[in-house]
């Protein structure tokens, strides 16, 4: 048995039963990170000292017969766009390279309260804008299954860390697929809950109406555990929903009777890699064998999802990123400035990478006088049409299953010069963000070249429990989630 390969639930059980100390788990993990991080580069910063301190605290609590939290002793990685008090939060951007938040994000506060051990902050595309991790200002994270490949994005660091057993679970953020797409590329379980289910307070905003914090884990039970802790209402986030959180951990093992699974034709069309198509079809067959009814359906407006997304997301981003001006914090140009406009220009020209600049420009353009109605208002209307598509669909089915991505992980550098091609890799994940529904990606196979394939399950608003349960059913029947890349 190799400790680091265990699931989060399993390692927690061993710690609680005191078969092993939390300190030993952390030591063991950092030893492995020391060996493999130079290859994978999943992290932007690590905090061994803090992790050991927390581990010691948990061990002492256990030794004294004290109560420990739901995440007792589990080493967790956090995407570096989620604020951690006293720990740098860079968003993989030069503009925030030395920014240390004076507060914890809601989710960070929650996992700390439940005795999680934060081990470090993971790499991402700058400000979560990208699908490959190549837009990080610091380095490119590599896919543990094939280190010539990207791990996906924007949460590639979190996904690679979990896959490479350099963290037991990770928190990410998903604006257009940034949890699900890298989870699919790295063979993890990646869950984006309903918009409003998890507070965004402390998540550095990319596109406020689409951003949602999610989990990247080794299996569905771990996802249920992490979501249990971070879900729920937060008075610091006006868009946080005051909806009761069910018991996910208990819920995932209940029986699925009369399951109706929707199969949307728009997600199996042109551009889909045939190996992925057959893996997902195969998975659907497993559901059918287990008594589920497969229902073909159509989500006619999903063809406009990508265009809609790139208007709304860039519009919001252009405004959310306006605050990075060097006045109060962040990068400040070393060159002399003649006036305030000069200062802004220098700070932002030097501080932002090209993808961020592209999106800020796009966003400013679509919000400009004379274009607002044609772009932003129209996109908002199309967004409503896509929402109605899903509402109609969910009147007939419990969950919708599709591939998570049209292709498996691609080579580093392969798509970086073609932004549109890059954007297409989020084509199946974006609708869930526009609609605000929960989506989860689970492993459902491998390509002939040995790259993981992900399948996406989408559910009704606030029905995370149901899609977790349906995902668990598949996991019980298969062992894709147990496969490990050959990193030894």
């Amino acid at each position, binding site marked *: 048995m190799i400790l680091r390969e265990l699931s989060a639930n399993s390692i927690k059980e061993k710690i609680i039963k005191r078969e092993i100390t939390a300190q030993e788990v952390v030591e063991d993990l950092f030893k492995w990170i020391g060996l493999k991080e130079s290859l994978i580069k999943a992290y932007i910063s690590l905090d061994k000292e803090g992790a050991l301190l927390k581990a010691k605290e948990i061990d002492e609590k256990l030794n004294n017969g004290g109560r420990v939290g739901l995440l007792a002793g589990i080493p967790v990685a956090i995407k570096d766009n989620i604020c951690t008090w006293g720990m740098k*939060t860079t968003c993989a951007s030069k503009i925030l390279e030395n920014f240390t*938040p004076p507060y914890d994000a809601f989710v960070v506060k929650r996992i700390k309260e439940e005795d999680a051990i934060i081990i470090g902050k993971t790499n991402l595309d700058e400000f979560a804008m990208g699908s490959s991790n190549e837009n990080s200002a610091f380095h490119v994270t590599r896919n543990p299954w094939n280190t010539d490949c990207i791990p996906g994005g924007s949460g590639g660091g979190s996904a690679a860390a979990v896959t490479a057993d350099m963290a037991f679970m990770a928190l990410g953020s998903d604006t257009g697929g940034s949890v699900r797409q890298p989870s699919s590329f790295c063979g993890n379980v990646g869950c984006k809950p309903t918009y409003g289910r998890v507070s965004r*307070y402390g*998540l550095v*905003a990319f596109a406020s109406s689409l951003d949602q914090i999610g989990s990247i884990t080794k299996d569905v039970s771990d996802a249920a555990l992490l979501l249990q802790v971070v879900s729920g209402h937060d008075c610091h986030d*006006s*868009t946080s929903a005051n909806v009761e959180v069910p018991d996910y951990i208990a819920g995932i093992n209940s029986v699925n009777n009369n399951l109706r699974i929707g199969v949307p034709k728009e997600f199996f069309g042109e551009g889909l890699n045939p190996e992925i198509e057959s893996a997902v079809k195969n998975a659907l067959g497993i559901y059918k064998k287990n008594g589920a009814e497969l229902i073909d359906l159509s989500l006619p407006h999903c063809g406009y999802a990508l265009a809609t997304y790139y208007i709304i997301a860039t519009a919001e981003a252009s*405004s959310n990123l306006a605050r990075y001006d060097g006045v*109060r*914090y962040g990068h400040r140009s070393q060159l002399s400035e003649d006036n305030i406009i000069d200062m802004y220009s220098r700070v932002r020209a030097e501080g932002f990478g090209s993808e961020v600049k592209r999106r800020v420009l796009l966003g400013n353009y679509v919000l400009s006088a004379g274009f607002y109605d044609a772009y932003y208002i129209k996109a908002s209307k199309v967004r409503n049409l896509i929402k109605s598509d899903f509402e109609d669909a969910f009147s007939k089915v419990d969950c919708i299953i599709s591939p998570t991505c049209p292709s498996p992980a691609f080579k580093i550098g392969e798509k970086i010069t073609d932004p549109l091609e890059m954007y297409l890799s989020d084509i199946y994940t974006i609708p869930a963000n526009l609609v605000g529904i929960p989506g989860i990606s689970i492993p459902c196979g491998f390509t002939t070249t040995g790259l993981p394939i992900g399948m996406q399950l989408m559910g009704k608003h606030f029905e995370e429990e149901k899609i977790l349960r349906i995902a668990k059913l598949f996991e019980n029947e298969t062992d894709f989630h147990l496969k490990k890349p050959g990193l030894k």
Partner: protein
Amino acid sequence: MKYEVVIGLETHAELDTESKLFCGCSTKFGSEPNTQTCPVCLGLPGVLPVMNKKAFEYSLKAAVALYCEINQFTNFDRKSYYYPDLPKNYQTSQNYFNIGNNGYVDMVVAGKEKRISIHNVHLEEEAGKLIHPESSDANYSLVDFNRAGVPLLEIVTQPDMRSIEEVESYMQTLRNILLYIGVSDCKMQEGSLRFEASISLREQGSAIYGNRVEIKNLNSMKAVSKVLTYEISRQSELLDKGEDVLMETRLWDDVNSSSRRMRSKEESHDYRYFPEPDLVPFWIKQEWIDETMATIPELAVSKRQRFVKEYSLSDYDAGILTDDKLLADYFEECVGLSQDSPKELSNWIINDVLRELKERKLNVQHFVISPKMLTELVKIKPTIGSSIAKEVFVEMINTGKSAHAIVKEKDLVQIDDTSELNEIVIKVIGDNPKAAEDYGQGKKNALAFLIGQTMKITKGKANPKILTELFKQRLSSISQ
């Protein structure tokens, strides 16, 4: 003048809430720079706004008091522009669904009623404050974010004003309404009430508006009057010469009493408004509007008219009393207690109470003489006389004692008893035969001397009316 002046006004009023619009920081004025800040109002990465309920209620109250149509669906928009005092480089404001539209303010100008239409009322956040070092070769500026995020109400009129007098009356009336409904302290010296004016001129009788000039940075009503006077003459001169007035935004320089160009129309901002995704829309139910309506007190304009009718006060006096709601309340409490003499109570308040308040820089609610005490003084005045009443009034302020107590303690009751006074008159005449003789010879001011002597003896308590009568009778009987 050959031109008609067309003026519209935007008013910014800081709402009088304890905490800021989107966070719990204090709104106290005058603290050390950047001591009332937090991650939210500093615009740190990852923070989110949460609406201050009180600020929202105050805005609704103001919109209702200004007779606006209330948007039952209202939400907030981001207004984007870069400035170092604006932490997020966008201001959370309202553009598409303001809390109130199409209201009005009724006012009286030179005795005539005039209605000013309100285009909209909306809620937004205040910016911070730039502090420029005094030395001119300093290459930096400082920012104080204590003010950033303070709730700000913006009230925008239609271009309905046609003279500086109307603008002055509008500002007074609006300020008065905001004070009456208690949503802003309107302290101009603390920047709680600020204005922006837009002004254009056109030939008398013309139906087309002239080119409009906007002037920002007007921190007092006086500044508004000054800038408008300046602009009217500047624009008339241009028009007289046959030149065009440039559409532009100008900045008022209070120190030099002049305005200068800030930006032309071509350089005007594109604020790129879009709905604030971090706040949810607000639905204002009719019951909420009705409840708010019920909390609006009688406003000054109608109170003033009522005072004239009900208490037979002059319009001028009623105006002074109703200028401050607390003072009007004080007056009405007095009238209620005394059930009598509103005119006299009004005189006391306007002449004596207001003078003392001004001297002591006090608010009427903190004034030592309560309505009950003042009423009592006015009631016993006939027994002590006007001049002693004034002394008692001062004594009441100094000691906090009631008029009764002071009068009793100092034995100040007027001597009205004719026989008692008669004895004194006889004595005084006996002591001053020369004066009595003078009076008999037609020197009328001898009487004043004799009365003065009597007052000396009685310590001013002799009823002067009776006393005069008695002297006249006595002296005339002697001389006959």
